[in-house]
């Protein structure tokens, strides 16, 4: 089967139109029925599948990098009578469990990216709803900062998953109506069990939307709101966007090659080894050279390639259960890159790179594979790159030198950026999460900022799991990887997901930890996916048959 490709651009979109008008962008959803990612279903009524969401993700990314002048993004429908009917049911009913889970995860991440842009990039997303806005369609609206609903007696918002399909509004729906929109829980209960949804004044009263507007005034009202939001934002017209050119990659049996990243695949042990090709010098690191390099700037290049690689492996290589991260390059150079971004956070492009690295690290946290980082001679885990060490399920570090390797012993460098710039979905840094916000353990780590830490120090500080010398290294790593491959993939996923996200709950952790887990459980249950289950029977005219037992 052809691999699912996450690389696209507005010229190739099937389902969206991106219209730019000065500081306002319109993202118009106009799904092409016959351009589904797989055969066997039609994307009627602006329903979506993964392909539709891949384009949405691309658009959000481009707006940030290519159009810093944009202050408001309006999400609207290109079809009459319908805003969006949500995820395509026939697609869901026919997809295997692995695909369903990955699809939901990616759509969740994309909605989070809209909130991230609203909060951190000065691009506010708002939704203008005319017609039916149901299920995943309303969840899309929930991810924006402001919802305007046409008060025309028929336009409505709905979360009909429970009554219609016996599953949950799992793309953040249940979490956002309570935690974000503060809908009262009993009203939320009514809303989520009412198939036809809620419209008009009641939708506003229940806080499901921010504003209801008569049809005749709808466009004016959206414009007025847009202007108001734009005026509240600082002027960013002097900021230059860059072009995100297509990512080049070569896929072969033995791996994937990008420009700053190579992934070696070992199917026997089900391991994908990421080898990051770090910078070797930093002589002309400046805002000028950054603007000149554009998307070829090493850090941006690496982030895009890493992001693409993670998504590719998630969807196309479900059996590669262990991701091993290695890096090669000058640790001093990476430390300079890290200092450079810290010193230039007011620059649009630098800020976007930092935010993108943050999101990519989060995507990795949320990837249900074992994450292992190896710190060896010649590796360059410093600052932002060291997030791969702190975010790993285990990190191993070589103590001393290999017998036939004259290079300096392996080192690791911590930076202030590891504390400030890359919070996990729980809202705190990986280091803080690692040490459970225990200042007794964090303080000594903070004191080492900027130092090249060797293995023994790293072990003492608790930054790595184990250190091995030259004589043990190969064998220990081999045995560990083999052992990892022998465990049940399900139990590994569960174990890792539970251990990774200690610390505070946020809306994001609730979405990925709670809502998703319940949804994935329901996705396995006969009441939804059995032969007589509601999801399978949808569209046949027959109701689902339920096992009456409460579990």
């Amino acid at each position, binding site marked *: 089967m052809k691999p699912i490709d996450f690389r696209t651009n507005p010229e190739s979109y099937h389902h969206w139109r991106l219209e730019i008008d000065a500081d306002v962008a319109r993202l118009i959803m106009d799904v092409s029925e016959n351009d589904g990612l797989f055969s066997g279903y039609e994307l009627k009524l602006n329903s979506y599948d993964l392909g539709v969401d891949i384009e949405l993700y691309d658009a959000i990314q481009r707006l940030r990098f290519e159009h810093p002048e944009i202050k408001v993004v309006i999400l609207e429908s290109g079809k009459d009578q319908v805003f969006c009917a949500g995820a395509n049911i026939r697609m869901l009913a026919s997809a295997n469990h692995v695909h369903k889970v990955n699809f939901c995860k990616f759509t969740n991440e994309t909605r989070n990216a809209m909130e991230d842009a609203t909060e951190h990039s000065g691009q506010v997303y708002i939704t203008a709803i005319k017609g039916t806005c149901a299920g995943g369609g309303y969840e899309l609206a929930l991810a924006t900062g402001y919802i305007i609903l046409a008060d025309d007696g028929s336009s409505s918002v709905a979360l009909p998953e429970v009554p219609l399909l016996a599953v949950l509004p799992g793309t953040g729906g249940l979490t956002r109506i309570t935690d974000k929109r503060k809908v009262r829980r009993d009203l939320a209960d009514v809303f989520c069990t009412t198939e036809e949804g809620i419209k008009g004044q009641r939708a506003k009263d229940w806080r499901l939307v921010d504003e209801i507007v008569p049809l005749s005034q709808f466009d004016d009202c959206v414009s007025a709101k847009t202007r108001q939001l734009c005026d509240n934002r600082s002027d960013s017209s002097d900021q230059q966007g860059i072009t995100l050119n297509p990512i080049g990659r070569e896929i072969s049996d033995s791996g994937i090659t990008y420009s700053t990243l190579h992934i070696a695949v070992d199917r026997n042990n089900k391991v994908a080894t990421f080898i990051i090709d770090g910078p070797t010098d930093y002589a002309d690191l400046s805002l000028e050279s950054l603007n000149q390099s554009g998307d070829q700037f090493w850090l941006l290049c690496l982030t895009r390639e890493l992001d693409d690689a993670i998504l590719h492996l998630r969807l196309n290589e479900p059996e590669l259960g262990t991701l091993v991260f290695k890096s090669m390059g000058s640790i001093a150079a990476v430390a300079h890159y890290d200092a450079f971004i810290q010193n230039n956070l007011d620059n649009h492009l630098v800020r976007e790179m930092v935010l993108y690295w943050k999101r990519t690290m989060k995507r990795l946290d949320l990837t249900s594979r074992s994450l292992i980082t190896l710190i060896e001679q010649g590796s360059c885990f410093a600052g932002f790159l060291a997030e791969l060490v702190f975010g790993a399920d285990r990190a191993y570090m070589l103590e001393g030198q290999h017998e036939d390797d004259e290079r300096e012993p392996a080192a690791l460098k911590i930076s202030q950026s590891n504390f400030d710039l890359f919070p996990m979905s729980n809202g705190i840094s990986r280091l803080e999460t690692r040490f459970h916000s225990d200042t007794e353990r964090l303080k000594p780590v903070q004191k080492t900022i900027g130092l090249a830490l060797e293995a023994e120090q790293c072990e003492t500080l608790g930054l790595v799991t*184990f250190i*091995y010398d030259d*004589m*043990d290294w190969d*064998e*220990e790593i*081999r*045995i*560990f*990887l*083999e*052992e*990892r*491959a*022998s465990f049940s993939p399900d139990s590994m996923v569960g174990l890792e997901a539970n251990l990774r996200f200690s610390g505070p709950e946020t809306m994001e952790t609730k979405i990925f930890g709670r809502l998703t887990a319940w949804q994935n459980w329901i996705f396995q249950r006969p009441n939804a996916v059995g032969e007589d289950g509601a999801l399978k029977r949808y569209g046949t005219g027959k109701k689902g048959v339920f096992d009456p037992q409460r579990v």
Partner: protein
Amino acid sequence: MSIDKISYDTLIPNNVNLSSDRRVLKALEQWHPQYIDWWKTMGPDGFQDAEVYLRTAISVETKGWAKFGYVKMPDYRWGILLAPQEEGRKIPFGEHKGEDVWQEVPGEYRAMLRRLLVIQGDTEPASVEQQRFLGATAPSLYDLRNVFQVNVEEGRHLWAMVYLLQKYFGRDGREEAHELLRRRSGDKDAPRMLGAFNEETPDWLSFFMFAFFTDRDGKMQLESLAQSGFDPLARTCRFMLTEEAHHMFVGESGVGRIIQRTCETMQQAGIDDPFDTEKIRQLSVIDLPTIQKKANLHYSLSLDLFGSEVSTNAANFYNASLKGRFKETKLTDDHRLDNTTYPVLKLVNGALTMVDEPALTALNMRLRDDYVDDCARGIRRWNKIVANNGVEFEFKLPHTGFNRQIGQFANVDISPQGEILKPNDWQIARNNFLPSTDDGEFIALLMRQETRRGKFAEWIAPPKSGVDNQAGDFEYVRLS
């Protein structure tokens, strides 16, 4: 270099090419002083400077593998010796049956294998610790030398397990190797892992019984591990078995010589009734019923070492192709045990009943059955000594449910004859089944050191022939 030849180019004799394996060499050289320290504090008490006539392995071939000579025990050349590698050996059982044997540890089974090695390894130094005070009451130089021979070989078996741990299990393995020296028999804080290895060995009859019964459990375990799909373990155990045979000889012949002495003394004194304990004991020999009680004790303790009759662990070890059955390759079945059963003796509604259990989970029971057969052969030889001396007495193995702490019969009192007793009846009859305090005190009275050349304590007969065909008055141990 021939693989069978032992290399002395390092401090540690070996046939595993240690000099080119700097990782293991370094680990072993760090462990070595700890081991010597352990030997000096926990090894034979009071004889560290004595020169002992010991055999040392010089080859791993069945013929001519050892040479004899005087050596001070701390200078004994412990080493790493594996039986020769069989070309093209295939895994003989379990899920991986028919595949090439593993020369490296499969990551999947790392934890399981390590556990097996640690449990086996823990027993080796334990017996040395248990037996460390026996020298003070040795009945002869011959016997003194024998216990030391057993001790140094148990020490070498510890080396064998430590080598595997250090060679194949990295840092974890080194830590376990260290722990093997830290745990001590009977220690309050860090005892040995298995119950029987925390019991003291108070006298020589106990030592011989231990060597007969408990070392035989060791033999069965080694036989099963010698089948392992992990080839280095299989080869190690095959070589250990050549040494283990001697330990059982010491046990069986030691008890045999005591029986011989008792019977001939009874004959000379004209005592016909073997149960006339008082009279017999006045002659400073150990009466046969007391020997039977000692056998009852050590046999039942040793049966506990086989673990629960029905065991998931045993099934896992077998299915993973790590631990086979006794004489696995001689058995004719599918060597997978997917759908077969094995009869297991169980307590069902208060009655002893054979129940068919899935053969995989009944592997402990099966190995124990093989062990019982093996013990029975030794018992028959003891009975021949009794009969040849014209005494009417028969040694018997007690019922497998007798005096058990582990498995099906842990919570039920069963007599040596196999009757289920009420707790009260057990209490009353206990001293007929197991050695009493009085028995122990009597034996203790007999235990006096005899170190004159060619002399033996009055309660034990001399051996038929000497070690390495030496004459009867040979000076097996030169005391300093």
